[in-house]
């Protein structure tokens, strides 16, 4: 027998990712902001000795997609129909959850509802009659508290039972326009394959859904539909005085509202004074100060604690390595050994502490629910660029890693905002570039200069965002902010640690081995005298433009693979202390160039996937140009100061 395929879907912030994590061994990033699951994931799962396939869909408010992530999710659901859908509904956001239930039932797939965040709803004074909800909707409803794992066993059991049954559910009848729907159904029935839900296609045609319209045009080879669709739409418009799409939404919405009022009672509760004050402060004018304090704290803690770790780790490392003193005369072997030693030292003392600390602090922030509040606050400023506050979330993620940040751009509506945000992300110093700022500036020049570099970077990012935003004519109402604000939650250390590991493990598994190999490779090049040739070749260009020796080009090339390599190979090649070879000004110029010059390989691949080649090339071009301008201007300023 084929394994049952269970689709997991829900509105953003319903705790869907938490349920997903409970059901799977693997860890997917859970956070407290709308739109985390940005890629559809299909996974074989063993849970309580039951085997099934779990398909994780990104959070979506409706089955009428408005952002790219929603569109991808829906197309996948229609084309790769699951046997049963678990809809994770939010007990604290009941009406919107019911709206989605109503839409899902139209797909003709059996559905079961996990009424999640049930405990939180009780805390907020929502009393929900689960039995009644189940009866009104005509589908099973199981109350769950995903964070604690409550109700999950029962949910899975029920879902597997349902998988081979006929879909049930009290589907809305759109009485006003039933003849029109029936007419369209009778026509498309002749060419629409059985696997597609017939009525749903008819409804979506009336709603002018782009994907469904395209699909039908493809399938309708004999043009049977002809102008009937237009006629029916016109008829609806005239008779109801409303565009069909708005009419349908309106219908579903009022049903959702009615059901919500039927099954939910609201009791007044006294909210936590602390949370309420925090909420009040974080989105008042004081919030800007708070935002600066919060972000500065994250960086200062990361750098400060990172420095402590570095000293300790170095002490231990030297104590250990002094135990093994070899006398090696062979220059090649010597180069290899010292390369391994140096790169291990750099890897352990520079990279690991900073990356882990940053992701840990950022995860705490992420889980707390603070980020959407910052997005709310920053909306006005982002509108000046032509983006909206929501773009702030991928931008902030960009300080961690550009790759997930670029993927997260899918939560934005429209191609242009996605392009501009992705461009800005590539210019924002990710954790890898943070290692460069830390390893060159914070260590050899000072923490204040390191923070100044961040501020300067932010200025450049905003400036470029504004210029490019203007030139692609971003500013229009379609980019305005519409975002549901999740409640504040106390972040769990355990959760943050898991997330830190999920986000930072690449540095251990992928970066460090490459660093060791690369360092040895560069050491060998040095012994063979190839470095000198390179220097001679590029010295004139780099000295003239940036006042930097030509050999930095090799570091920049490695930096294109992973940004932190630029620092690592600089330090290992210059035998530990760059200050013996470069002046502080040169170090600053080099750092500035590495911030902007090119998206790393992983980011480039992601960009091509998300934005296509053309836009990726434009982004790379802007990156290079920015680096050249910033680097040479800094050089000129230092020359004359």
């Amino acid at each position, binding site marked *: 027998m084929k394994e049952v395929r269970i689709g997991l879907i829900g509105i953003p912030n319903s705790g869907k990712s938490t349920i997903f994590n409970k059901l799977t061994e693997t860890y997917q990033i859970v956070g407290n902001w709308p739109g985390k699951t940005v890629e559809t994931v299909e996974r074989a799962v063993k849970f309580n000795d039951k085997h099934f396939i779990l398909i994780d869909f990104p959070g979506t*408010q409706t089955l009428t997609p408005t952002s790219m992530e929603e569109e991808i999710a829906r197309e996948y659901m229609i084309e790769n129909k699951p046997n049963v859908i678990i809809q994770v509904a939010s007990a604290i956001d009941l009406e919107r959850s019911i709206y989605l239930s109503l839409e899902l039932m139209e797909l003709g797939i059996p559905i079961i509802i996990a009424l999640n965040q049930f405990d939180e709803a009780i805390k907020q004074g*929502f009393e929900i009659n689960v039995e009644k909800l189940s009866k009104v909707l005509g589908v099973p409803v199981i109350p769950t508290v995903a964070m604690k794992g409550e109700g999950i066993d029962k949910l899975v059991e029920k879902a597997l039972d349902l998988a081979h049954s006929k879909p049930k559910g009290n589907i809305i009848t759109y009485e006003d326009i039933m003849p029109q729907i029936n007419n369209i159904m009778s026509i498309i029935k002749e060419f629409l394959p059985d696997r597609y839900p017939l009525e749903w296609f008819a409804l979506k045609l009336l709603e002018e859904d782009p994907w469904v319209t395209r699909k039908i045009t493809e399938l309708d080879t004999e043009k049977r539909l002809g102008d009937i669709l237009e006629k029916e739409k016109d008829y609806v418009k005239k008779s109801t005085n409303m565009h069909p799409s708005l009419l349908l*939404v309106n219908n579903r919405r009022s049903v959702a509202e009615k059901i*919500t009022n039927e099954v939910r009672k609201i009791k007044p509760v006294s909210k936590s004074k602390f949370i309420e004050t925090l909420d009040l402060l974080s989105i008042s004018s004081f919030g800007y100060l708070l935002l600066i304090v919060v972000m500065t704290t994250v960086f200062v803690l990361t750098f400060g604690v990172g420095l402590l770790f570095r000293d300790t780790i170095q002490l231990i490392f030297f104590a250990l390595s002094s135990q093994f003193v070899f006398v090696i005369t062979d220059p090649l072997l010597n180069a290899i050994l010292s390369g391994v030693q140096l790169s291990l030292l750099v890897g352990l003392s520079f990279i690991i502490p900073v990356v882990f600390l940053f992701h840990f602090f950022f995860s705490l922030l992420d889980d707390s629910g603070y980020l959407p509040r910052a997005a*709310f606050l920053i909306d006005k400023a982002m509108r000046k660029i032509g983006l909206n506050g929501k773009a702030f979330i991928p931008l902030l993620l960009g300080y961690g890693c550009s790759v997930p940040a670029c993927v997260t751009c899918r939560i934005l509506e429209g191609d242009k905002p996605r392009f501009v945000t992705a461009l800005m992300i590539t210019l924002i110093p990710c954790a890898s570039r943070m290692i460069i700022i830390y390893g060159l500036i914070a260590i050899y020049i000072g923490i204040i200069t390191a923070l100044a570099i961040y501020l300067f970077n932010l200025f450049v990012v905003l400036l470029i965002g504004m210029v490019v935003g203007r030139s692609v004519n971003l500013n229009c*109402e379609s980019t305005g902010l*519409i975002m549901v604000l999740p409640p504040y939650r106390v972040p769990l250390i355990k959760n943050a640690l898991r997330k830190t590991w999920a986000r930072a493990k690449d540095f251990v598994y992928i970066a460090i081995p490459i660093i060791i190999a690369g360092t040895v490779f560069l050491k060998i090049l040095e012994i063979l005298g190839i470095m000198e040739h390179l220097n001679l070749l590029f010295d004139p260009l780099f000295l003239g433009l940036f006042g930097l020796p030509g050999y930095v080009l090799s570091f920049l090339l490695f930096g294109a693979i992973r940004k932190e390599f630029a620092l690592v190979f600089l330090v290992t090649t210059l035998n530990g202390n760059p200050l013996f070879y470069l002046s502080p000004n040169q170090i600053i110029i080099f750092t500035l160039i590495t911030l902007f010059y090119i998206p790393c390989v992983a980011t480039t691949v992601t960009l091509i996937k998300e934005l296509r080649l053309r836009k990726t090339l434009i982004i790379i071009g802007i990156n290079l140009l920015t680096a050249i301008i910033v680097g040479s201007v800094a050089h000129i300023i230092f020359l004359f100061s």
Partner: protein
Amino acid sequence: MNTTLARLDKGKTAVIKEMNLDNNIKRRLMALGLLPSSFLKVLRIAPFKGAILIDVGGCPLAISHDLAEKILVEELE
């Protein structure tokens, strides 16, 4: 009194009259519970005439100021 969502003060309640926005945005707002005849309460307004946080259907929703300008409401006493 008829006005726009953007002009409501903090703490005011209102009922939506009309939304002069393009269909895509309108659909999105409606799916979130914001449609003619629904009630809302202004919870917070971000500084410098920034985004507006409203309560609609018991859940907080943030909307850009420029969108709120195009949502006509009737203020309730």
